């Protein structure tokens, strides 16, 4: 058998490394399963690269992957800030890639590079669903807090954009916070001064935890909803199950066990004995790796051909559902809603809150 | 006119409530060596600091030739032709001796950025030109220093450091030299040798005037033409060495002899 290399690129160190490591393990699982299958033509080797969630490092590692001619494609990036600058690099070197976690719309929609694909949805989907939920739940006044990275900032832009569809909902205040910030009491007190019905947070777990915990501390009992960045075990562990109860979040993926092959994946993941959890984006990394490997199986280890094959993906059946790329090679998906119930993230339709709402 | 007389009149310097200089006046004419005496803490060093612009006096007037130096920046005052030594040795110990000397000659070096970057040859040549002057000057005081021009000043012993400090002050070709206890820590003999070297230098450039703070009375007697005695920031006596040592006030406050 010939050996073919593919790259996995994600944040393996730094503050968001838990997601990165989950993604890496999931991609590794897909590769191992591929290699264990005797009917496959190629043996695949996974080259794991760390973008540190830093754009300049991202460009370096992508260049590095691209330089290695035996690397045919990449499963890349959780951090939007990195992905948005490396898309040009992928394009320049003609290295096909599939985004497994970054949700900034511009990564696919901001260019027309044929190399760039994405299996997960974008923050547009999340923002749309969040706005819908705010409206349906009858909240009239929303306070918006976001971190000033392009992830949080982008989330807040799309969310507030969709909110405009509902004239009876007003934004009482919008607060950008720094990712290195520890103390949010000033923003929270100011936000509470606007008497909101709900506080929406766009950002990642560390700040999400701090904000939710500090709301409790100060005694703000306003409901708290957040983006997919807080949808992980870390959030509940961080604020404690009691305080986390009732927090709502939105995500492009359904729970793993809602997918047809979800249980299977989890079982295999456990069996492989990885130290870290797959995290919310593990299934996407797994699917992206599978998609890429299948394309290689189909057309052989040639970047241009693999790119064409990936471009043409329609009705590809994957762990995260059927993948259909639109004209910007963006998978067409919908967001899903989650809520913390009894110390666990629960799929909204299954939760007691959904039933109460009805 | 090229008159370079230092005229200080009614200079007053206060530190909080303390009056370190109290309406002190002094005139130093070209070519003159003036000894500045006074008990410890009477304001001698303060006077030097005021003249060189390190302290900003409260009132008074300081003129050097036709230039007004009152409350000017130290670098401006140096441009007017005043150089000094320090009571406690202040060489830049990690720099080479020659670098230290170049600091003294700052005003005579090509300091323009443009020339430094684009006229390298000429700029370097003018520095090299100083090397001879620096060697000769150092050799006067101690040939040993001249041989080790490119070693760190910190590798020299105290006495040589004092000599280097003197060379640094002299290399800028000042019109007025302020020496603050240049011989502190030296033996009798060394002190005299040092002062001979300085006066020797002065003989060659007769315009150079010197104000000398020194506690060794024999040195003062030998080199100074005029003495000024300070006490509590006030001038208590002025005149030739003889008049000064004979003054009862001076004898009591400074020399510790009964009048």
């Amino acid at each position, binding site marked *: 058998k010939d050996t073919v290399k593919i790259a996995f690129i994600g944040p393996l160190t730094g503050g968001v490394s838990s997601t990165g490591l989950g993604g890496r393990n999931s991609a590794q699982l897909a590769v191992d399963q591929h290699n264990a299958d005797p009917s496959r033509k190629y043996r695949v080797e996974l080259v794991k690269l760390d973008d540190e969630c830093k754009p300049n490092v991202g460009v370096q590692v992508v260049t590095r992957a691209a330089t290695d001619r035996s690397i045919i494609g990449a499963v890349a990036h959780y951090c939007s800030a990195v992905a948005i600058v490396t898309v040009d690099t992928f394009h320049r070197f003609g290295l096909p890639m599939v985004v497994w976690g970054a949700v900034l719309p511009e990564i696919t929609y901001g260019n027309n590079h044929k190399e760039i694909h994405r299996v997960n949805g974008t923050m547009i989907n999340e923002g749309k669903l969040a706005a819908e939920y705010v409206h349906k739940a009858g909240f009239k006044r929303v306070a918006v807090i976001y971190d000033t990275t392009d992830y949080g900032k982008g989330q807040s832009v799309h969310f507030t954009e969709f909110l405009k569809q509902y004239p009876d909902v007003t934004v009482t205040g919008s607060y*950008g916070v720094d990712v290195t910030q520890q103390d949010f*009491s000033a923003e929270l007190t100011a936000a509470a*001064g606007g008497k909101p019905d709900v506080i929406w947070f766009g950002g990642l777990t560390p700040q999400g935890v701090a904000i939710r915990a500090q709301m409790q501390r100060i005694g703000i009992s306003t409901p708290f909803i957040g983006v997919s960045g807080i949808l992980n075990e870390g959030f509940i562990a961080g604020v404690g199950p009691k305080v986390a109860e009732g927090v709502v979040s939105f995500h492009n993926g359904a729970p793993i066990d809602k997918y047809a092959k979800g249980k299977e994946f989890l079982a295999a993941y456990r069996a492989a004995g990885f130290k870290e959890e797959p995290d919310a984006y593990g299934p996407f990394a797994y699917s992206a790796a599978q998609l890429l490997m299948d394309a290689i199986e189909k057309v052989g280890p040639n970047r241009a051909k693999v790119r064409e094959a990936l471009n043409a993906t329609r009705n590809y059946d994957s762990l995260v559902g059927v993948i259909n790329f639109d004209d910007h090679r963006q998978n067409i998906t919908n967001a899903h809603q989650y809520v913390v119930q009894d110390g666990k993230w629960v799929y909204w339709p299954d939760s007691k809150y959904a039933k109460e709402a009805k | 006119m090229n008159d370079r007389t230092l005229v200080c009149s009614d200079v007053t310097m206060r530190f909080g409530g303390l009056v370190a200089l109290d309406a002190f006046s002094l005139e130093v004419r070209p070519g003159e060596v003036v000894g500045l005496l006074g008990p410890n803490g009477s304001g001698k060093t303060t006077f030097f600091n005021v003249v060189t612009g390190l302290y900003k006096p409260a009132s008074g007037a300081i003129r050097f030739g036709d230039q007004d130096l009152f409350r000017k920046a130290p670098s401006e005052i140096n441009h007017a032709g005043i150089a000094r030594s320090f*009571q406690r040795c202040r060489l830049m110990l990690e720099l080479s001796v020659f670098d230290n000397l170049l600091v003294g000659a700052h005003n005579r070096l090509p300091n323009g950025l443009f020339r430094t970057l684009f006229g390298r040859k000429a700029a370097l040549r003018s520095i090299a030109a100083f090397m001879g002057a620096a060697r000769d000057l150092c050799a006067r005081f101690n040939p040993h220093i001249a041989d080790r021009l490119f070693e760190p000043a910190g590798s020299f012993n105290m006495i040589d450091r004092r000599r280097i400090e003197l060379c640094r002050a002299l290399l800028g070709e000042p019109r007025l030299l302020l020496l603050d206890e240049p011989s502190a820590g030296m033996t009798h003999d060394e002190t005299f040798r040092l002062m001979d070297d300085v006066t020797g230098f002065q003989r060659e450039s007769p315009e150079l005037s010197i104000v000398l703070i020194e506690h060794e009375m024999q040195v003062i007697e030998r080199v100074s033409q005029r003495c000024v005695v300070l006490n509590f920031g006030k001038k208590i006596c002025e005149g030739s060495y003889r008049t000064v040592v004979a003054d009862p006030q001076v004898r009591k406050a400074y020399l510790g002899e009964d009048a």
Partner: protein
Amino acid sequence: MEISFAFQHLVNFLMLGLIYSIVAVGFSLYFGVVDVVQFAHGDVVALGGYAGLAGILLAVAAGATGLGPVLGMIVLAVLATGAAGALIGRYLVMPLRQASPINVLLITLMTGTAIREALRLFVPGGSNPSPFPMVLPDQLLTLGGVSLRVSSLIIMAAGVLAIFGTHFLLSRTRLGLAVRGVAQDEETARFMGIDFKQVVILTFVLGSCLGALAGIMSGLYYRQVMFNMGLMLGVIGFCAAVVGGLGSLMGAVVGGFLFSGLQIFATVALPIPSAYKDVFAFTMMICIIAVRPTGLLRERFEERV
């Protein structure tokens, strides 16, 4: 603004200012002894937070209740940071006394990075914030529309006590004299019979214990600790110490409250997006430094020539 919100801002200001102050006091203390800036201090604060957390968890696991976890928290935090401080003082700062200040700055910055990374790598779940259990009484006191938690009161009291304790130690005891002597002229201090090594190590232990206190306070108040909480805290603490006047404890306190005040002012009262609050606070700090180059409270001392 309603009274309750105004009061809440006031509480935020005091709490944040107190934490900054304690960190800044640490910086001032180190500067006072060895004339160096110990930039790993922020990360020692984080270490203190984590060690306190471990102390609580251990005590709880051992079945302790009531004051037990509090004790466990304090003991472990003090032990861990004290050891870290002693090691940093003895093996990093002391050998580098003669080196240029920028070397010391860099070496401590890198030590801080190492501590931070070690926390992230070796604490289970270290790259995410860890929840910090509330071990103090936590009732909400309400009085005339304003409310405050008992735990906040206790934390504040502890902080104020620590600052005054340190101040007393430095100004009224022999240790204080030794500390200042060593800072100003090590060799002469040794001629006076001051045990140089002991003084340096003692100060570093003391400063680090203050750091532990700051870490615990921030853990208790914000209910979480995070591996990189020390970075910004360190920079802000340093900034506060410098603006207050390095070497002056009260200056550090003033600087700490000033910084927290500026941040809150920017968020609440300025017509700029709140994301600019750090930009505002740091700009103001630079301006203050430009106007008072030796800090707000430092006695003006000019070297004689």
